[in-house]
């Protein structure tokens, strides 16, 4: 998911066009909707909540567009940060209910047996991810799902690079433990 200089420049141009004409924001929306929606879904396990938080994230993006300053960092990093903050705010909102996964994963074209095994593993893993402490879950998803480096995750989460390393390490260790217990 790493972007080349040319891709970053293209993204910069897209943002500039959207600043001048809000209708041009559509391209950014189309480009990032799936990423943000899936990221939020992996956090909370509910399509309804994922949709709400994704909508709020893009609303915020529209609001902040006039003040947005390009720093050569992918726009998705900023969107992930906003989505993460909104998720944290949502968690603090009482009453908090642990939501169960309500959507099957997209089917993969594989042999039936291995597809079934893979699906089972994926579902166990996603259940385990939802049980992780929020910070560990966020670091893990940004690293594995969004494909970010420690430094980038640190910028999104407002944490040091070292803290991110440790969060991911603990998340992976906890996942391993949880998967063992499930077996």
């Amino acid at each position, binding site marked *: 998911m790493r972007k080349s200089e040319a891709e970053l420049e293209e993204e910069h141009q897209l943002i500039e066009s959207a600043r001048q004409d809000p209708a041009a924001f559509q391209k950014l929306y189309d480009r990032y909707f799936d990423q943000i929606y899936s990221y939020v879904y992996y956090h909370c396990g509910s399509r309804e909540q994922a949709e709400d938080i994704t*909508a709020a994230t893009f609303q915020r993006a529209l609001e902040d567009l006039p003040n947005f300053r390009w720093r050569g960092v992918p726009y998705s990093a900023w969107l992930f940060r906003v989505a993460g903050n909104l998720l944290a705010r949502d968690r603090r909102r009482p009453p908090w209910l642990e939501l169960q996964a309500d959507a099957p994963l997209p089917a993969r074209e594989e042999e039936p047996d291995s597809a079934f095994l893979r699906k089972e593993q994926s579902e166990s893993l996603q259940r385990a991810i939802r049980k992780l402490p929020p910070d560990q879950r966020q670091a893990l998803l940004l690293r594995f799902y969004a494909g970010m480096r420690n430094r980038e995750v640190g910028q999104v989460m407002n944490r040091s690079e070292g803290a991110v390393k440790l969060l991911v390490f603990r998340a992976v260790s906890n996942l391993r433990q949880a998967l063992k217990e499930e077996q």
Partner: protein
Amino acid sequence: MTHRGADWLSEAIDRWLSGLEKADQGYEGHLGDVLDILSGSLPAIPDETAKARVRRRLAAYAARPRSPQQLLMERATDNVVRLGRRVTEEEYVPWTTAASAAALLLIAVIAVAWLRRRGNGERTQS
């Protein structure tokens, strides 16, 4: 050990992200199994209905750009939250830094003890 493990794991994930090799290389029996599952278990979940619904919500939404003062306040709040995290939660310190700090502390303790002994020795002589 945790910090060294974190460094190791981080390098393996970086190699995997760069597409150079599988994430679990060199990690047999040490989290490699989880990395292997993780690397294929988080696909994007396309949801065209949700995408269309959110698009309609955004179209109906009249954006209210925020003032620089509001943005400044937001940044200040973020910094306070960040500071809170530093104080209340464990912040990672690389093991080399921790080891150097421990060594320095030990040297300082030894130096203080030696100076005290020397001071006591000089007092008894006089």
